[in-house]
């Protein structure tokens, strides 16, 4: 179980970060009033992600079991993150990452729609050397969750 699920404060779309000497984990969680299939579709159609997600500059590749993606984030627009999809359980769980860490997305269906949780843990033996160079994810995570909620709820409520 990740921090977002154990920390009720973070279920409001506020990011929460915990640190140890060798790792850092950021989580955000928010309730989205939309069908899980809409949230899942938004998360997994790579070429469409930059349209609704203000934290993503570009995304190439296929988000599927074993797929590879190339991501440019607003956190560092000059860098291309080459990531592998490690887990792909439709409408439930998506994990991608590299040797430094993994980003975990979970969807938990509830009465009002779905509880979306995103967490990323980075770390390793060399982490203390680089820790200060890695920017905080908090603001980016909050924007991501807010953008996803807004887009999914717009689609859910659309009459078109």
């Amino acid at each position: 179980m990740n921090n977002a699920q154990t920390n009720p404060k973070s279920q409001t779309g506020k990011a929460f970060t915990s640190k140890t000497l060798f790792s850092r984990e950021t989580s955000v969680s928010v309730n989205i009033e939309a069908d899980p299939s809409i949230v899942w579709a938004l998360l997994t159609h790579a070429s469409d992600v930059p349209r609704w997600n203000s934290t993503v500059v570009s995304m190439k590749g296929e988000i599927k079991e074993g797929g590879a993606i190339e991501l440019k984030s607003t956190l560092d627009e000059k860098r291309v993150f080459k990531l592998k999809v490690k887990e792909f359980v439709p409408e439930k769980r998506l994990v991608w990452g590299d040797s430094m860490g993994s980003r975990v997305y979970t969807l938990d269906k509830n009465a009002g729609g779905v509880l979306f949780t995103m967490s990323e843990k980075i770390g390793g033996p060399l982490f203390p050397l680089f820790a200060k160079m890695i920017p905080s994810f908090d603001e980016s995570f909050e924007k991501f969750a807010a953008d996803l909620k807004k887009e999914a709820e717009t689609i859910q409520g659309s009459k078109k």
Partner: protein
Amino acid sequence: MTIDKLTPEFETFQGELKSFILRMTASVQDAEDIVQETYIKAHAKLNTFRGESSLKTWVFSIASNLARDLLRAKKRWPENVTDICREEVLGNRQFFQEALHIRETSPQGNFEIKEHIAFCFTCVSRSLPLEQQLALLLKEAYGFSVKETAQILDQTDAMVKYYLHTSRSKMIDIFDHRCSLINKQGICHQCTELNGIFNPKQKAQEELVKIEMAKDAENKSKEELFDLRMKILQELDPFESGAAELQLHHLEHNRQVMERYLEEKG
């Protein structure tokens, strides 16, 4: 539903079906083949039609599956399809000779800007992912509800809403950047350019005021302008209009250019 009732009912929407498949495939030959195959399949499987949807919805689902089978293996067209095809056509004397011959001799050889707007949509919508193109056409151009579109595509209502929202957003964005009829900074003027070639004595501006989308471009939102574009598609039958032969000739040209272009790109 009995076999003897299938044919007359099929005939009531056969024109719409053929138009829908043409706008999916951009090929007259494929449209005719798929409509024929759809009828044969509907005839053969009529005993499985339970009346849970209208016959029209059921038949469109057969046709959509056939279109999917045909298009799944093919690459999608790029957003700037009309630029690529324009470059090709400028060096193709035979195209203009054939087109001018159609213009002069065919009762369906008129050039109308409105018809070209629908033609342009057919080409550009081939840049959407297949499921999005299907959903957008079914709902926005052929008037099926979200529920009916979901039945036709064998998807949930939620997924159809996702496809519609995403495809509309993409198409609105493409036309906003490209179409000079709705945005003065738009980079594509092909409809007025071709109007100058085929109707040299006619002033394009006088034609444009007859088109609501162009006339009201500055007063309407991007969403409303897209709805007006879709209204043009709803009102035009690409096989029966006064410009049908000329536009279908142009469409076949673009299809062939795209097939070569995508093959060369590998």
